[in-house]
């Protein structure tokens, strides 16, 4: 089985922040959400998901809380912090700029 294309460096952070901006989720739900939203185009290795989440937590962008799931199990729910919201805004802006530039370049080369 070939590995899914690695995400552009730093993009995973942006995706995670965006997903958590919508609602607090636990790790498993985040992985499901990632798959469903991106329609399997972006495959995130489940292995790299948790280190990424922990890194974001240590940066102070998201915070974790142990809560009961609907199945009555304890799970670690992540949610965005105020700092994370700022980070999301700036990373979104960055991404928009970057992708716009790349799109322009890609189109140029076709002409």
């Amino acid at each position, binding site marked *: 089985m070939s590995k899914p294309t690695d995400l552009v460096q730093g993009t995973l952070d942006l995706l995670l922040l965006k997903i958590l901006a919508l609602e607090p989720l636990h790790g498993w739900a985040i992985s499901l959400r990632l798959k469903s939203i991106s329609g399997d185009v972006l495959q995130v*290795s489940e*292995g790299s998901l*948790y280190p990424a989440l922990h890194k974001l937590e240590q940066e*102070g962008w998201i915070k974790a809380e142990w809560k009961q799931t609907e199945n009555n199990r*304890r799970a*670690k729910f992540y949610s965005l912090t105020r*700092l994370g919201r700022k980070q999301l805004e700036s990373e979104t802006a960055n991404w928009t700029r970057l992708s716009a530039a790349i799109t322009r370049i890609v189109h140029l080369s076709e002409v």
Partner: protein
Amino acid sequence: MWLERWWFTVPLRVRSIFRGGQLERELDEELQFHLDHKIEEGIAKGLSMEEARRAALRSMDGLEQRKEEMRDARRIHWLTDFLDDTRYAIRSLRRSSGLSAFVVITLALGIGMSAAGFSMVDGLILRPYPVPHPADVVSLVSTSRDDAFGDFSYREYLDIRRQTKSYDGVVASGAMQTVGFSANAGATPRVRGGMLVSANYFRVLGVEPQLGRGFRDDEDQVAGRDAVVVLGRDFWNHEFGGDPSVVGRTVRLNGIDFTAIGVAPESFPGLLIFSRPDFYIPLAMERLFSTSPQKDFFEDRDDRQLSVKGRLKAGATLQQARSELAVIAQNFEREYPKINRDRGAAVRTQLEMRTRDDQTEWKFIVVFAVLAIAVLSVACTNVAGLLLSRAQTRTREIAVRLAMGAGRFRLVRMLLTETLVLACLGGLGGVGVAYGAIRFFHTLSIPTELPTFIPFQLDARVLIASVALSMVSAVACGMAPALQGTRADLVNGLKASGVDASGRKRLWSRNALVVAQVAMSLMLLTASFLMMRGFHHGVAAAAGFAKDHLLMSGFDPRLVQYNAAQTQRFYQHLVERVRATPGVQSAGLTRNPPLGLGEFGRIAFVPDDFQMPRDRENFTSSMDTVDDGFFETMGVPILRGRGILRSDTADAPRVAVVNEQFAKHYWLGADPVGKHIRLDGRTGASIEVVGVARTVTYRQTTERPTDFVYVPLAQHPNPRMILLVRSAGDPHQLIDPLKDIVRSLDANLPMSDTRTYEDVYRYNAVEGPGAGIEIVAVMGAVGLVLAIAGLYGLVAYTVSRRTREIGIRMAVGAAPSDVLRLVMSTGLVLVGIGTAIGLAMGFTLEQVMNSTLFNAGGVDIAAYLMVVPSMFLITMLAAYVPARRASRIAPTEALRYE
């Protein structure tokens, strides 16, 4: 932004550090939660339980690595690594516990001595004044040719205070003086210490009385009007048990009723180093102390008794203050040419005041500190050498670690952690050693009438210094071995642990260590030897007068308000009755006996028949005021002419006795008896020199011969005198008869310091300096033992590393004696170089010590003759034992030797 970040992240780090176990459990639980779902999903897809489980684990791409990544995300691995290193270090140090113990003890001695040294340097030189913004407080001093740190007179102080603009305030204080204190009018006064201060003293220094108030300006305006006193904190505690109602109460000082208006705070024990005033009294109450009936404190501009300090204004520079004061001093000189000729003024910082050239305590302390640092360097060199040897035996271990991918930086860190652990243990022991050394100084009882405060303490500053010293020594002794150890060449390192791979460089650094140790210990040895010799030389030479069978006791009739005539009568009767007592051979009066505890007065004079330098108004000399019984009682021989006689009364022609040194100084070759000196200046009163006394040691046993003048008490009245009584038998038996005599003369008059002269002498001339010298000697010995141990280890190690080489040499035909010569010659060269350097350092040190501390007289050849050969002998022994062993090994064995 930064702040906000920290707000979120700091609690996380703290949690990572202290709740590691819980985080670990949470981490497992979180991943388990994910895996369980994954397995469920797999089963739903139709996999078996086992297959689903395996698939789930696979999807994590290596669970353990992920966990490690997540731990790294916590960003405390520097700490966890450090803790791991520490644990590892403790384990590996425990394995070689003998070596570790030796290293720790070595470092403890070095660090402890240095910390004690720091505590003393701090107490005597560095510790700031106990006032707010102490750096702004400067001293204003009157300077003359003979004295760069002189006091000002009251009038001069007032002028300076009025004319300067650089200060927020200028304060004046007198010297600490004895005061007769009684809590009520009836009680016999007890001797305490008091100090005259200007009314603005506390205000300008920024000291808020802990109780009551400080002085008001109007309390220092009229001489003798406002008898108010501020009590020292310690005195208030001891005498009044810290009773707050003391404010407003009346206390009797030298027979005058004073009102206590306040208590100085605990934070302010005064500005003196060795003593703490019990009373602060306004300058206007000076008559309480007036010592010289001839001079008027408030009017005479040359009655210089006040030390003046100012607090620099914000924005005023030291430079401005200096030029401002210089102008004032010039004006003084112009307005009062007679008494201010050649006299200037200077502003000095606290550091300048504490490192004055004319005081020896701080110099001794600095020498002590330097020697302590030398001991520490020897200790560090020693430890470095040991660790270097140890690192070499660990070459294989290090090579394995490097081969497995450990970074060099990481390994250096690991090895440094080991030395850090050692140094911390050493530092801990060092604090104990420092505490012991400081306690030792506190156990010296100093027989002064006012308590002497020993400023050495183990406070936060000293502890911080100890920690810093430990860190520095950890790096100093760990860096070289760590760097060298990790430079290991992998291939060779793994192949054979025993071979000295990159020989030359390593040998070089080890050789340097040997040289450094020899040099350092030689210097230490020279210094301690020199001090011992100088000291014993001085003590032996101090036998210029008799020290035994002498009783002394101090009197100050001012304490009971005697006027000049009463005082004179009292001393006359006292001496007469004492001389008439059975068992008394003779009795005399002096202001301060030789090697006593007080200060000698100074006399300014112009000698007849001596060509005065053009730019000098007069010369000065130490002097003592004595009566007709002094020379006989003290046993100071009169070599020419006569001593002081009863007939030298106030009305008789004025006379003086000078010492041999004085006579040689001014009238070399001529007969001094019959010559005259003029007091103060060319036009002053003429005094005839009637006798020459033997030159003895006056202040310290180690001093150079100094000029000295004796003048008769009757012609120079002085209230505070010390009675010397020479006894036929045990002087202690005269104490009671003496007390009876004094009681019969005046029951209220306190006697102070009644003890045998021998006690005072033993402390002041023998035990006091002796204690310091003992400590230096101990340091020298410790340094030497450390150096020998280190030297032996290093040389022996070097030889043992060459066992294989020696085997080869012997296999191809070298005789044991050749081998011995080979090994010994290397040792000899190293010791030779070390000795040369050590001699150079020792010689420099000797020059410095001779010129500053005492006069041991030129280069002490004997010291070197003893030190150098013994050093050589020891080193040769250190080289010989292993060399001999090496030369006896069978070649076959040596070749196999690893």
